[in-house]
């Protein structure tokens, strides 16, 4: 079930109510039942995959613990532990590769064979990608690595561990939690904390605002333009691409925020997954602020094991490229995602390579790196660089992405920014204005974040009548202005396909 569905709005309060009614010791069992029910609403049969991943990684943890405590020789211990990790990774990634990449691999294999003159009838497998498999697989594997590295002890309670893998607020689209943070919170059976629940509710409201007021509204425009990019060339595509940057941010950030809010109401803290990424002053900084849980996963479980920046400059660049190419592939089984990831990697490599040049330029031209203008220049520059890569992310194929880039520069039509043309791309003037206003609200919120201003805290400190009125009005206006319901097609979260 989607977060922005009547089903969830009925499901969640019931889960919370029962959670706080049942004895503390068994609350995690109730959450486990609710989480599996949540997943089964997507697909009953793919619950088996979730169970498989849970079982394999649980056993890997138990095995690793046993090996650690055994009296066998150190070298053998290390070999056995590595074997255990390899087994866990192999089985889980094997499942992931099969469901996510099998069709992609076969398609490319057949393309290569065709290119060399071997023509074979290609069978159609049409394997359906289980929702959230990329997320829960990575979360489960991070546990294996954490036990391997002795960051945590293996969890002996299978049910508690199963809840860690399947915890419903973050099951299908993250954030990808670390066992160190989440596991210990799950068995506690928290007392109801009103302040935490209130904060959680505000987070959920903010998440719904981003998702159904901003992201789903922008989607109407972007889908129209990208869906017919031959007609909507030039500045239509430029505007749509810039708006897509906001759409994907709000879609994903919105989901993560709803997940965080829902968890907080249950007394559980999830990690912050975004930190005003479009205010980053470099692509490297952007990736420290965007999808933080995934970036840090790749950093800890791929970049560092590859050697990180400890094996020389060239090796550092290579490791960066590997991480971003894999990250691209993680996002989707398509060359356009690989190009997207690759571009982000290239940006960072070039940034490192050109650093001495930039430093020289700053010195020669006496530029002040702390000046607002300088920061603004970097922020806008970073946004444009990142936004260009979103073309490859949004397009349905590499060919389409190239076509879009061509179409963007082939047509010269800046006048559409001044006349009514933009109001004929799915959003009328009023909806377009609401979208712009909502984006301004988002920008203000992110600026506050960069300055350490906690808006929720400010609201909390106001008079009771203001707080309650603010919440009631916000909820009502989100429902009024949101894109949902029978009047629209249900728009799923973008990241569910991963």
């Amino acid at each position: 079930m989607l977060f922005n569905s009547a089903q969830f709005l009925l499901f969640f309060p019931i889960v919370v109510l029962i959670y706080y009614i049942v004895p503390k010791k068994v609350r995690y069992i109730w959450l486990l039942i609710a989480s599996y029910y949540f997943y089964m609403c997507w697909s009953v049969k793919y619950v088996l995959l979730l169970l498989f991943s849970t079982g394999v990684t649980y056993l890997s943890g138990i095995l690793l613990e046993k090996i650690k405590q055994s009296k066998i020789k150190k070298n053998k211990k290390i070999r056995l532990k590595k074997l255990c990790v390899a087994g866990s990774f192999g089985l889980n990634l094997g499942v992931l590769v099969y469901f996510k990449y099998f069709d992609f691999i076969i398609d490319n294999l057949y393309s290569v064979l065709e290119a060399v003159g071997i023509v074979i009838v290609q069978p159609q497998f049409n394997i359906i990608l289980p929702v959230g498999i990329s997320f829960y697989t990575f979360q489960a594997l991070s546990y294996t690595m954490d036990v391997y590295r002795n960051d945590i002890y293996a969890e002996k309670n299978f049910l508690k561990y199963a809840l860690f893998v399947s915890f419903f607020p973050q099951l299908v689209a993250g954030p990808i939690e670390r066992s160190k943070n989440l596991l210990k919170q799950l068995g506690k059976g928290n007392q109801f904390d009103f302040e935490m629940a209130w904060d959680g509710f505000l987070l959920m409201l903010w998440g719904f605002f981003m998702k159904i007021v901003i992201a789903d509204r922008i989607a109407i425009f972007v889908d129209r333009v990208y869906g017919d990019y031959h007609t909507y060339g030039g500045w239509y595509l430029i505007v749509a691409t810039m708006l897509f940057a906001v759409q994907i941010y709000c879609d994903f950030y919105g989901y993560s925020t709803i997940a965080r809010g829902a968890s907080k109401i249950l007394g559980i803290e999830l990690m912050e997954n975004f930190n005003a990424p479009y205010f980053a002053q470099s692509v490297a900084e952007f990736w420290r602020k965007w999808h933080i849980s995934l970036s840090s996963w790749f950093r800890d479980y791929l970049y560092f094991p590859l050697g990180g920046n400890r094996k020389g400059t060239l090796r550092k660049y290579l490791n960066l490229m590997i991480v971003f190419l894999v990250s691209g592939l993680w996002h989707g089984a398509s060359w356009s995602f690989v190009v997207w990831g690759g571009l982000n990697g290239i940006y960072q490599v070039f940034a490192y390579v050109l650093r001495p040049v930039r430093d020289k330029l700053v010195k020669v031209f006496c530029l002040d790196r702390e000046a607002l203008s300088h920061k603004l220049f970097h922020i806008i520059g970073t946004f444009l660089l990142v936004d260009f890569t979103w073309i490859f992310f949004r397009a349905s194929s590499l060919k389409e992405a190239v076509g879009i880039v061509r179409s963007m520069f082939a047509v010269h039509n800046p006048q559409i920014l001044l006349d009514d043309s933009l109001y004929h791309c799915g959003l009328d003037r009023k909806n377009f204005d609401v979208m712009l206003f909502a984006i301004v609200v988002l920008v203000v919120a992110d600026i506050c974040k960069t300055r350490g201003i906690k808006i929720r805290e400010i609201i909390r400190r106001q008079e009771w009548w203001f707080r309650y009125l603010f919440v009631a009005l916000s909820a009502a206006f989100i429902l009024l202005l949101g894109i949902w319901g029978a009047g629209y097609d249900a728009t799923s979260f973008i990241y569910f396909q991963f």
Partner: protein
Amino acid sequence: MKKSTVKHLAGALVTILLFVGIMSYMMQLVSRKDSYHKYQPFYDSQLNIDVLFLGSSHVRYSVYPVELLQDYGITAYNFGGHSNRMATSYWMMVNAFDYTNPKLVVIDCFMLSENTKFREDNNGYSYLHDAVDHIPFSVNKVKMIWDLLESSNRKWEYLWSFSQFHNRWNQLEQNDFEPTVTATEGASFYYEVYTPHDLDVVTERKGIQNTVSVDYLCRIIEECQKQDIEVLLTYLPFPATEKYWDEAYTAGKIAEKYGVPYINYLEEDVVDYATDCKDNNHLNYSGGQKITKHLGTYIAEHYHLPDRRKEADEDVLAAKYQAYMDYKRDMLQAQDELECYLVGLSDDRFSFVLEVEDSAYIKKTKYKMLLQNLGIDQDAIAEEGATIVCVSGETQEAVYYYGALNEKMRRKLDISDIEQKEKENLLIRFTVTDNQSGERIDEVSFVKCGTVEANRIE
């Protein structure tokens, strides 16, 4: 319980109440007002509604309850709706029983051969909103939605129409902030004229197969009989093809089976298809007037319904009639085509003076039939030159004058002089008056444009 817990619970309650309050206002604001506009007076009625008219748009455009009250003392409401199938009518009736105790239910049997509970296309879902949205939330409403939309996943938009209409926030008009209600007790008027060609002559009467609509018609009758409510079946007239003659025949058989009276208007000589049709499926205002009178007389003669005029507050009744007349006046004034205007005059509440400037033209064209429909004798219209006809609404008698009217005559007939700019190409001029109040309703001239049509000029 701790003080802080009480405080927090109170705060949550206040927030919920505020939210519910704001949402209630918003829900009302953004909902489409069509259903409210048509049906709200039913809920606001201070008199018991003794007769419910159920059916499709055939009923909506052919039965005028205010005139039933004014002329016969019968309180009625028109529940006819666009594409309403029998199942929808059944549930509208069941829900209406929560608010009134009717003595008689009149059901029109058009679309008896339809095998669905409602029209299952985009328009149908929209029409269903018209039929459902006005009904206050209740167990019967939930049953209605669950039954009609049995296999559909769109139930929630009818139980909570905000889910459908919340995106109307950018289309709000004054009517959304200050919604108006119909003055016609659910009826609507068509003014267009359509003359069917080659009417089907159906001699063989045969029935239709059993359908969902037949089932629900039986349920309507059984429900009424269970509650000692009289039932009258009708098949309202229109240029019917063979299929609809079969429906009418089946309706008669069902009436026979349940021992309820039935009027098959396809076999009655109440309307004239040459002047009384809006299209090949609906009657226009002229046809509706005739049907209303016929039904009013029939009900008054066959059912002993109380005369509600006697118990109603006089001021309330007067206001109701005035609102109705105002509506009819506005509708008449909105007609820019002569034929529509002539249809609008087929109302015995209007008296009018016609100044036919080009009598020869009138006699050669379709307007001749429409004038005849108003009780104007074609032979009495001059072959050439001007004819002035005074028609009294109450008596429907026409008095004829010929040639140009002098000032004295104009004063006597209380009609103003024709202005110079109107004289050019003037075809016909009307001065219309309300019988009861004597108020001037309209003064309008129609000129010839091209060879066939005439248009209004101000």
